[in-house]
């Protein structure tokens, strides 16, 4: 029993790191993704192609590799002169990666809004920005709740990738127990993820219900 409590305590400490990465990544990547999606829909060609290249690079390489690049390339290039600390590096990599994925979801949502709504806005004398924020964006949010929720649940589990740059998150802590002869903590750690994703699933079905009144 004592062993169970001490393992649970250590796994909770580790899961704190996962939750921290999760929260900060969401807070930063959701708005950043919108900025990126606007870039990739820009009529200004150079910006559009740059953004598209950026999204291609980020989505086309493994997140694990991106973590290595952000953490190891600066100190290798500067001979140890400059390095992010481990958590900073993880946050930068996660935020950039998830902003790229979110941006494509936003783009899909925005482009699904019929052109007629913009035209109606113009007829009413609204400015382009007014139409976007007051008419289009709210409908977009409703339409993308499901795919964003999907991506957010993936993020919960992806946070354990941070262990490749030695952030002591839950899976790393669980693996350490196998070095002292305990196997079960590794499988026990699954419960933490399951519980967290369960809460998120409930939260998202609640949000979807709340947004139902928009159905046109």
């Amino acid at each position, binding site marked *: 029993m004592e062993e169970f409590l*001490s393992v649970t305590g*250590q796994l909770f400490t580790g899961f704190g790191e996962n939750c921290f990465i999760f929260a900060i990544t969401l807070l930063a990547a959701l708005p950043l993704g919108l900025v990126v999606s606007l*870039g990739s829909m*820009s009529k*200004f060609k*150079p*910006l559009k192609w*740059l*953004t598209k290249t*950026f999204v291609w690079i980020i989505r086309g390489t493994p997140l694990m590799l991106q973590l*290595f690049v952000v*953490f*190891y*390339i*600066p*100190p*290798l*290039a*500067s*001979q*140890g002169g400059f*390095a992010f600390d481990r958590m900073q590096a993880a946050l930068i990599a996660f935020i950039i990666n998830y902003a790229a994925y979110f941006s494509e979801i936003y783009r899909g949502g925005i482009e699904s809004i019929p052109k007629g709504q913009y035209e109606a806005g113009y007829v009413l004398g609204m400015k382009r920005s007014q139409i976007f924020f007051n008419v289009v964006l709210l409908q977009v949010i409703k339409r993308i709740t499901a795919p964003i929720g999907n991506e957010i649940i993936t993020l919960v589990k992806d946070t354990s990738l941070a*262990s*490749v*740059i*030695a952030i*002591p998150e839950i899976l790393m802590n669980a*693996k*350490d127990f*196998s*070095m*002292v*002869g*305990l*196997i*079960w903590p590794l499988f026990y750690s699954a419960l933490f993820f399951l519980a967290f994703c369960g809460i998120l699933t409930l939260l998202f079905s609640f949000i979807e219900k709340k947004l139902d009144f928009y159905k046109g």
Partner: protein
Amino acid sequence: MKKIIALLLAVTLTAALFVGCSGSNQASSGSNSNAAAGDWSYIADKGELVIGITYFEPMNYKDDKGELTGFETEFAQAVCEKLGVKAKFQKIDWDSKEVELNAKTIDCIWNGMTITDERKENMGISTAYMENKQVMVTKKANADKYTKADALKGATVVAEKKSAGEEVAKGDEFFKQATYLGVDSQAKALLEVKSGTADIAIIDYVMSIGTLSDGSDYADLGVVDEKSFSPEQYGIAIRKNDKETLKKINDAIDAVANDGTLKKIAEKYDLEDLLLVGNK
């Protein structure tokens, strides 16, 4: 207005791309000349030696109170005291240890690291301070069975990839009739045997002390006492070409070995028979 914002964004992104590229160029040209003469003064200026470790009983592990302890932990602290710097332990991913060392996110690897020719070529290696060997671990019920090579016919042998255990499993005559499977850690190798998907794991003797004790989940596994393989030696790795730090660390190892400190630490963890330095 919108055009200007778009243009600004475009310029920033291009700049970011260039910075990224030039950064990686430097990295490739820089890694060779890493650790020039000034490495010791770099460590001394910081006032701490950052030691790359993984948790691995009895070398470095957390005790019941959550404090880091172990043979290597206390040994490193004693050596750092002689060097006049603070010992700072940084947990790393073992697979990235060479990158960590070159990126200066750690200053040495000190975690029961086996000295190999490959490592000698890529890093500076200290005096060998401890001996280790490879042992076979199997279900206790089978321990008497696997003492002769003939008994291994059809058996599956696992070891960590790139480890000394793998060399034994692939190279030693004894295992000629067995099927070999490489896994990504020694702990996984034990898990394979425990779950019955493999018959024999070849792991470090030192690791077997920590993991196979009574009360662990591996209590039903045991070492085949009659057979051990390829004696090997543990050393500390530092950045290549850093002669000054290497000499200082070697001198400090000699100092703690000769005044009996090292032996006392080793006795605490039941490792004194394996020591290679100091008067036994």
